[in-house]
């Protein structure tokens, strides 16, 4: 099926994509500048983090938070944003935070950033003495050697909460099931649809789809960041309208929307 139109100078089939991304960026800037406080629905998984870390403090048990096994992909980066929040809470409440790292060769590059995030959180809370390098262990560059170490930490330390976000892969079940077995509250994020099903079953709270990337803004007190989520909703409406119009058009024999999306 040929595209509806092509624009000279733009790679064929990518004009609409370019338009969408530019419009998305502009709408983010617009919403952030406007700083108007928007209604954001409650995300149970994110609201539960504070309570879960509080529970760990009351039980005098550690909290465990991991950001994934990948390199600097977007899922690792939002995992780091959530790690920053968990580290801040742990430092404020005086709870020991364990951050298992490793699992992939690329994760070695992310580890120093995670270490810095945790250290800065403890320094900001005036509890630098509580920060221990040993609490950010590096297990291995191999996925299943890492998980062996991770499960070992869970069984030895019996944490009260396990926040497993970011670029985790098939090892997620080992983590969530062991966490359940040791009585920890499990908060996870599913960035891949293939893991969403079993993470939803095995976790107490699961961040699904865009809830993970939006976590940083949701948890922030900065109104401009929270406002940026508004553009997400705007584009969801655009997608929804395109789906409905496309469906109607296709059923009356027109392929205009399909060809438009290929432009």
């Amino acid at each position, binding site marked *: 099926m040929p595209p509806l139109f092509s624009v000279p*100078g*733009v*790679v064929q089939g*990518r004009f609409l994509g*370019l338009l969408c991304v530019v419009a*998305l*960026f502009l709408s*983010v*800037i617009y919403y*952030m500048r406007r700083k108007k406080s928007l209604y954001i629905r409650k995300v149970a998984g994110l609201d539960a983090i504070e309570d879960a870390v509080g529970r760990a403090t009351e039980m005098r048990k550690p909290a465990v938070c991991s950001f994934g096994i990948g*390199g600097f992909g*977007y899922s690792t*980066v*939002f995992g*780091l944003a959530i790690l*920053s929040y968990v580290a801040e809470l742990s430092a404020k409440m005086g709870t020991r935070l364990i951050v298992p790292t490793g699992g992939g*060769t*690329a994760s*070695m*590059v992310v*580890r*120093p*950033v995670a270490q*810095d*995030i945790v250290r*800065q959180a403890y*320094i*900001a809370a005036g509890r630098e003495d509580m920060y221990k390098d*040993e609490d950010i262990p*590096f297990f291995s560059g*191999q*996925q*299943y*050697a890492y998980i062996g170490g991770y499960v070992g930490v869970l069984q030895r330390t019996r944490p009260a909460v396990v926040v497993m976000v970011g670029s985790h892969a*098939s090892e997620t*079940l*080992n983590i969530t*099931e062991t966490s*359940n077995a040791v009585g920890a509250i499990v908060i996870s994020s599913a960035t891949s*649809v293939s893991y969403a099903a*079993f993470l939803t*079953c*095995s976790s107490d709270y699961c961040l*699904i*789809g*865009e809830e*993970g*990337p*939006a976590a940083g*803004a949701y948890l*922030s007190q*900065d109104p*401009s*960041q929270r406002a*940026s*989520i508004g*553009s*997400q909703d705007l*584009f*969801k409406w655009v997608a929804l309208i395109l789906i409905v119009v496309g469906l109607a058009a296709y059923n009356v024999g027109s392929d205009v929307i399909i060809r438009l999306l290929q432009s």
Partner: protein
Amino acid sequence: MSAFFKSREVILTAAGLAFVATFVPYFVTIPELSVISTKLVTITALVNAFTLALAVHSQFMRGMYFVRRRSRGWILKAYMMVTIVLMVIFATMGQDKGPYNWVMLAIVNPLSSVNYGILAFYMASTCARAFRARNMKALLFLAAGFIVLFYQAPLTGSIFPGIEPVALYLTDTFAMAITRTFTMSVTLGAIIFGARVLMGKQPQVLGLGGE
């Protein structure tokens, strides 16, 4: 000088320029920018490889620190350091044959496979929890799950031939629609998250947490 390179402005400017240099050539045909983009990707790969060497060095030094202090678990650290050194030596002899290949085939891969196999038991225990239909929604999910599960099982298809069209309908309509919705929502979230990072609103992920 290092303070300059670590400053918020420099890091954000570098991130912004790198974004433009790789983003624009994907959509717009500008040969000069494509050359810059390719070079940037090559430079990133090289820096990444160098960073990995630094990371291994830092792990080694950290291990040494544990061994010297005889901290808890120091024997494991010593073992890890010995294996790091051995694997570096083995890797220099070639990766497709020789001791490196043997270690991977005879030790690392079988151990990883065993760990992967354990997933089946974890899945079983997850399913056991999921199979508690506490309300109507959960019951519907459970019924759909059972139909798809029976369809996937080798013998069920021949015993209950009527299950195939129902299972295919469920996977090709509901599952497909949900997968696409999920992908769209994650993509939207990722783009907006990227925009926030580039605008310096989430500095901690760029290693600027202390500022």
